[in-house]
């Protein structure tokens, strides 16, 4: 690339959506603009559930999803994702450079339907493994980035891709959001009493909950120079992730995280340029009410509001990408889509601009807003043409600065790791040798013990009871600890032991510290426990409190709630095994988070809980200047 980093913006090069309605972005938009919906009634017996349900289920699976690797039979999610990615790549006209292209995968439950309670979990159930499989099939050699930030994942994936391009980490980013529905997911939402027995009715007085849906949606972003943009080019102009720091499943009553995310992406722009806000609009009572408050607080009551959930259902990990694609198509057609299912009776406390019919617009930018469990909220501002690109340049100045610093620190760190002998400290080696001392505060917990800044902390027990022993020893006094799943308990005590040593003021609301975590097993241990509550037959009692913890990002949410951190929270999954691979991955994702102008420090690291004998947390606190200590 001849452009310097300051001149890189993330342009939409291609996109594709596969939904139950249609195979292709434009056909999907055409059908929804005619008022068609993918959501249909399904019998409980279909998945041995207790109640019937409404959902958008893909039945038009294209048969072009055969794997290049003929020994691998793709799962449903993989087949959908591969089809969508290949269809988007075909639009590029040329092959992508495999060394400068990153695949960014967004999903909440991936291949969860492959999990059987009485059998060992297959590798494919790990979300990072799913992403590796896709890369292998597509011939992409750079390690993928796998985002699992609950229902915000799709928007968070677009933000990660935008940052990776602006920072020069890659020249193209293929962002694929995919969600396959399953009895696991539907039983869980039924246990939460979150599903509507009818078509969902976003923002309506009589709304009764959400419908789930499945989809694969792909947006390929590429680096471009603003002066090379044409009037038909779309770019990701701004993106932000903010946490409610309030509750792991209920949205903030003040719309806190959504408001803060909106505020961040509105910086430096005129709300009069916005065609609409494509909101989350799940049609649960609390979500839509929360969003109406956030929209009012952000000064957006005059901007039309659109929920697309009535067309596709809530496609979870795919939603952020799918709804961005549909919004692009709509703005290109000069249409503000109707909110399908809206019954004309406003059911939220603030007068938001929602409508039951398509409207016209001549504006060409929009905001995609989304929120999810773990208190996480995300927004991106998408804009078409050059005008916004030049404004975006100003905002990029600081980000590029951070990128350059990080490039240097990454290079330095890489050099160090080359000159040092093989310094791979596996968990087993740590058991023998402890953790090396470090300039930045670090906490390291394995079944063998706890090391604070490299020094072992005496604990009354090891192994299974160690995590609870940490909680008691540190006198944390937070009874909610006992409600957490093992991954959250581990991440929580690690963060507490670390933060207790800093001597900084705690529990005052702040948004300058992001929580960025990396894991391999994610919430697999809790997935298994939840699966054991949905065995067909007399023992079918899906547990809502277990289901809530079947999202890997909840651990970041728990830490945010405890500390009142309203900044970015993000959970990434990786198949990295050696400590060097993990550190490389961590540096890569941590520097992306530091490009947010609000973020000055990161609580970051590895947190993994496979089972009672295999777990590890290795957290640290860094800023831009201390990135090389990761």
């Amino acid at each position, binding site marked *: 690339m001849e452009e310097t980093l300051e001149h890189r913006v993330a342009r939409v090069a291609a996109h594709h959506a596969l939904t139950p309605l249609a195979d292709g972005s434009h056909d999907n938009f055409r059908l929804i603009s005619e008022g068609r919906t993918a959501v249909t009634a399904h019998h409980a017996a279909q998945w041995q559930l207790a109640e019937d349900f409404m959902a958008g289920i893909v039945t038009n699976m294209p048969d072009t999803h055969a794997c290049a690797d003929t020994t691998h039979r793709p799962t449903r999610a993989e087949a959908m994702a591969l089809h969508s990615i290949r269809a988007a790549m075909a639009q590029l006209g040329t092959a992508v450079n495999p060394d400068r292209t990153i695949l960014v995968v967004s999903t909440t439950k991936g291949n969860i339907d492959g999990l059987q309670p009485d059998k060992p979990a297959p590798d494919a159930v790990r979300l990072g493994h799913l992403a590796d499989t896709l890369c292998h099939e597509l011939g992409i050699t750079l390690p993928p980035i796998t985002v699992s930030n609950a229902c915000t994942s799709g928007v968070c994936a677009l933000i990660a891709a935008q940052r990776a391009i602006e920072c020069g980490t890659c020249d193209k980013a293929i962002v694929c959001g995919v969600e396959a529905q399953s009895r696991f997911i539907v039983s869980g939402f039924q246990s939460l*009493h979150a599903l509507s027995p009818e078509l969902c009715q976003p923002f309506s007085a009589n709304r009764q909950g959400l419908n789930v849906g499945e989809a694969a949606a792909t947006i390929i972003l590429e680096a471009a120079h603003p002066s090379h943009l044409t009037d038909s080019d779309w770019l990701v102009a701004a993106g932000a992730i903010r946490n409610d720091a309030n509750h792991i499943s*209920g949205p903030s009553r003040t719309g806190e995280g959504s408001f803060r995310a909106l505020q961040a992406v509105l910086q430096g722009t005129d709300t009069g340029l916005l065609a609409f806000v494509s909101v989350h609009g799940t049609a649960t009572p609390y979500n839509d009410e929360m969003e109406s408050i956030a929209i009012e607080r952000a000064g957006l009551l005059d901007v039309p509001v659109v929920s697309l959930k009535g067309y596709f259902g809530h496609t979870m990990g795919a939603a952020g990408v799918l709804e961005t694609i549909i919004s692009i198509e709509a703005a290109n057609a000069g249409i503000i889509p109707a909110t399908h299912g809206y019954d004309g009776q406003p059911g939220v406390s603030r007068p938001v601009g929602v409508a039951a019919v398509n409207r016209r617009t001549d504006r060409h930018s929009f905001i995609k807003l989304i929120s999810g469990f773990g208190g996480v909220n995300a927004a991106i501002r998408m804009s078409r043409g050059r005008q916004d690109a030049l404004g975006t340049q100003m905002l990029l100045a600081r980000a590029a600065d951070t990128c350059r610093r990080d490039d240097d620190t990454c290079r330095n760190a890489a050099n160090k790791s080359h000159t040092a002998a093989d310094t791979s400290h596996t968990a087993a080696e740590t058991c023998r040798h402890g953790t090396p001392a470090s300039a930045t505060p670090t906490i390291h917990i394995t079944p063998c013990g706890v090391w604070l800044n490299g020094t072992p902390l005496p604990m009354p027990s090891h192994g299974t009871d160690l995590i609870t022993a940490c909680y008691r020893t540190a006198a944390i006094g937070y*009874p909610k600890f006992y*409600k957490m799943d093992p991954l959250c308990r581990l991440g929580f005590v690690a963060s507490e032991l670390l933060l207790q040593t800093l001597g900084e003021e705690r529990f005052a609301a702040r948004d300058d510290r992001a929580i960025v975590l990396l894991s391999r097993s994610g919430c697999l241990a809790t997935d298994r426990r939840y699966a054991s509550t949905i065995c067909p037959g007399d023992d079918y009692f*899906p*547990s809502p409190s277990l289901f809530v913890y079947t999202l890997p990002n909840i651990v970041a949410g728990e830490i945010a709630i405890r500390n009142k951190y309203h900044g970015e929270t993000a959970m990434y999954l990786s198949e990295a095994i050696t400590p060097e691979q993990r550190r490389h991955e961590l540096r890569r994702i941590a520097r992306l988070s530091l490009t947010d102008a609000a973020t000055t420090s990161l609580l970051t690291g590895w947190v993994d809980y496979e089972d009672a004998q295999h777990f590890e947390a290795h957290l640290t606190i860094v800023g831009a200047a201390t990135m090389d200590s990761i």
Partner: protein
Amino acid sequence: MNKAQHDLMEELTQQLKQQVIEALNLEEVAPTDIDNDAPLFGEGLGLDSIDALELIVLMEKEYGIKLKTPAEGKAIFKSISTMAQYINDHRTK
């Protein structure tokens, strides 16, 4: 209420407290810590909306009582006493 009925209710109340503690992971709470008539939600035990949903599962799993909506639970889950009374009147197992 005669003595036999009273003893049955007392037994149910004790059993229910144990079940609530287990279902909601109230690790540091003993049955004797829970006052029969104290509010379960709000202050005190610090229960939240997910706990309420978990109590709905408990009612069905242990006593065969199926609530149609979470809203019904509001009056029933006021206290251990109100829960025990409702179970006593509606249990199918």
